[in-house]
């Protein structure tokens, strides 16, 4: 990647914007990793109750549905936080 080999000119607008973009990208990646780990834990617990020598078809489709539902649940919780009802 070019940005790693170019000399840093601290104080110039271009490099601090690049830095901000890098930080945002890293934060997004860290969040995505944490999310995937959580989803993996939840769905393994729900769908793979008796681990066999490979994932069965029903286990695989359960996992697929589980991931979709978990993403949906994240959306529902997000919206609930931003539109409180009394």
């Amino acid at each position, binding site marked *: 990647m070019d940005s790693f080999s170019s000399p840093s000119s601290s104080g110039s607008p271009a490099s601090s914007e690049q830095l901000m973009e890098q930080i945002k990208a890293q934060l997004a990646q860290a969040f995505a990793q944490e999310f995937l780990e959580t989803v993996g834990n939840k769905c393994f617990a*729900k769908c793979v109750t008796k681990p066999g020598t490979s994932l069965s078809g029903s286990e695989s489709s359960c996992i697929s549905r589980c991931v979709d539902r978990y993403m949906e649940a994240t959306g529902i*919780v997000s919206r*609930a936080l931003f539109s409180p009802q009394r």
Partner: protein
Amino acid sequence: MENSAEMQRFIEQEQQKAMMSEMIGKLTSVCWDKCITGTPGNKFSSGETTCLTNCAQRFLDMSMIIAKRFEMQ
């Protein structure tokens, strides 16, 4: 000078966003455990959707109570 003020604001914004993301993540995890008791289906039942929404909002209510209680000490 211009740069560090902008950087400061950027950092504050990202901190806020990170805190929100973390809150949503934890809340989803807790409410999933409370509300999705069976095997995941092709869609949520209306009971499950309601439970998730209630769970998140009741958690907020609880947080307010705890914060107020803590303030009075």
